């Protein structure tokens, strides 16, 4: 009794398999296979806000690319995102890369925080899986000789150098009112690395670094730090930390009536944030920041800003950096004419992507770092964020020092 049933099952299975095999080339011909891309960010945990902003940027880019007809060199193949959550820890980020590799993604875009990027790029390197770093400012990310790792935006070394050079220009132009500096930074790779760089370089420009203060994430109270600030009375305060701590610090400074000649941030978490400016206009007023920023004269950047704001989101650097990183990948797929990992890596190596609105010019990757990437200097003036340096992008003249 059982033999015929088995045979029938086998028959059905075999027919099914044959039918699928026959049908798929037809489907394949009508609709090219989508390119799977890992979109990896810390969307839960301590860095969730930034991670979600990044993800939004990536998804908006994918929407635009697909709407415009997908990857033309691949017959209009659509980009299919595979979303991953790094849970704000390097270990979870690594696990997601493993999963994405198993799922057969062609590339990974992510993973926001320096410490997470350090881990995810390394995990992806094992499989020669191309990894475009969207933010991750620590320079170690691109200094380990990983062939698969490409960073589109500038690292903290570049940001700190530009910030310092410009500080000196501003201070000299104002008659050198500022001589002493206090640095306040968060304790992870990004804050510590930036602070060390600044503390090392500032004396060379003739500034005395009075104190460097490190704090944890989260820090619940900044009164002590501000008390020390009061005692030290520095001309310039340089914060390098994430949004929450930056906002609390500046608010506490306002409460304690500490008014340095300038709050001059390097990659400040809230310094060039529309959210901060909207919520605390008084505290934000006058703050200078050297940070990732878009070309304010490029209409496309303002169009994207409008679209992001229409979704009730803030147009933060996370959004436009990841948006552009995803567009870089789409451009690379056009150049590579293939979704093959090795082809993508070599197309990135020679990429001259210029169809974007960041002030970088065409891309040129040197050891994985986009050589033209640069931060812009912004200042909060009249409840808006204006570019003050360099001249090519300037929207307003810098106010330095804040109080004469």
């Amino acid at each position, binding site marked *: 009794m059982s033999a015929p049933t088995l045979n029938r099952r086998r028959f059905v299975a075999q027919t099914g398999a044959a039918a699928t095999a026959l049908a798929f080339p037809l489907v394949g011909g009508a609709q090219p296979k989508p390119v799977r891309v890992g979109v990896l960010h810390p969307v839960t*945990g301590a860095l969730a806000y930034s991670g*979600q902003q990044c993800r939004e940027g990536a998804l908006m880019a994918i929407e635009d690319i697909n709407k415009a007809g997908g990857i033309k060199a691949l017959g209009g193949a659509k980009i299919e995102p595979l979303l991953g959550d790094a849970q704000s820890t390097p270990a979870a980020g690594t696990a997601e890369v493993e999963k994405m590799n198993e799922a057969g993604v062609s590339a990974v875009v992510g993973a926001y925080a320096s410490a997470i990027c350090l881990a995810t790029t390394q995990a992806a390197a094992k499989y020669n899986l191309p990894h475009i770093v969207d933010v991750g400012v620590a320079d170690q990310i691109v200094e380990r000789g990983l062939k698969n790792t490409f960073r589109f935006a500038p690292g903290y070394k570049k940001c700190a150098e530009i910030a310092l050079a410009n500080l000196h220009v501003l201070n000299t132009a104002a008659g050198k009112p500022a001589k002493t500096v206090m640095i306040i930074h968060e304790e992870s790779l990004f804050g510590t690395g930036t602070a060390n760089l600044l503390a090392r370089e500032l004396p060379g420009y003739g500034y005395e670094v009075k104190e460097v203060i*490190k704090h944890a994430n989260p820090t*619940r*109270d900044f*009164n002590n730090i501000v*008390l020390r600030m009061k005692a030290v009375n520095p001309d310039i305060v340089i914060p390098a930390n994430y949004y929450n701590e930056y906002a609390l610090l500046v608010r506490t400074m306002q409460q304690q009536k500490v008014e340095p000649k300038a709050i001059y941030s390097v990659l400040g978490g809230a310094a060039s944030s529309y959210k901060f400016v909207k919520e*605390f206009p*008084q505290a934000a007023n006058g703050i200078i920041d050297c940070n990732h920023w878009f070309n304010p004269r490029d209409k496309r950047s303002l169009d994207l800003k409008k679209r992001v704001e229409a979704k009730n989101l803030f147009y933060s650097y996370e959004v436009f950096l990841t948006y552009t990183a995803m567009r870089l990948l789409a451009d690379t797929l056009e150049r590579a004419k293939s979704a093959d990992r090795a082809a993508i890596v070599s197309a990135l190596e020679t990429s001259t992507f210029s169809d974007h609105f960041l002030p970088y010019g065409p891309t040129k990757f040197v050891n994985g770092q986009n050589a033209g990437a640069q931060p812009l200097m912004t200042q909060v003036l009249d409840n808006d964020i204006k570019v003050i340096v360099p001249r090519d992008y300037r929207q307003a003249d810098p106010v330095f020092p804040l109080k004469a």
Partner: protein
Amino acid sequence: MLDFGILFPAVLNGLTTGAVYALVALGLTLIYGVLHIINFAHGAALMMALYGVYFLKQFLGLDPYLALLPMVALMFVGGYALQRGIINRASHGKDENILLVTLGLSIVLENIALLAFKSDTRSIETAYTLATVAIGPAMIAVPKLVAFAGALVTSAVLLWIVRGTDLGRAIRAVAREKHGARLVGIDVDHVYAMSFGIGLACLGAAACFLLPAYYVNPQVGNGFVLVAFTIVVLGGMGSFAGALLGGLLIGVVESLGGLWFGESLGQIGIFLLFIAVLLFRPQGLFGTKG
């Protein structure tokens, strides 16, 4: 570093920060100290309360201090229902189950918040958010001063409930001898739920005092929970005076630790103190032996 102009403000600042810790710990000392429920969801409940205060302000324009009444009531009812409807039922009276249930609750609550409110950090601005009062050389933020007073009043009210009311006597009876309490006609399940409700109501108050000077996001509770547990053990399990003084003490130790050891090592002082107390006075500063 020992300059009065810095030391005095640092101590005052520690006291006001400690008051907020104490507010969070007061609810916990009732739940953990008296009823021996290890409530891992305490931080998540604080987070929910903070969101409550935030939305009352955003949508109804209700000042955080005026929100005290509805928030305390809301958190009490929520806590009562949570204990009676979920924690009690799911744990079947076993301590290790309670541990897991409250841990699970905290994960669920945190992720609900993440789903509903996104991970956006939100803060409110009131007329007094940035206002300060000068006390000698120190500038103390008005919201922190209010929180300090709030912590004193809240612990007085709690003390009165536990010492001066029938409910308080029932709570103490249940804490001492559950079966005996049941034998003399006390509804133990009701008392458990009432205590849990009161514990969470404290968080409602804490949220109202905290938000004007702080922020809320789905992870915000985590920063307070470990400190609150430390305070409860330090002050003596179930002692309200212990929770209040323990909170203030920890605030000052953290503040001075930050001043001397650097801000990211400030908490080291807390745990050194904690270890010392456990070594030499294991029942806590205000606890009774046995």
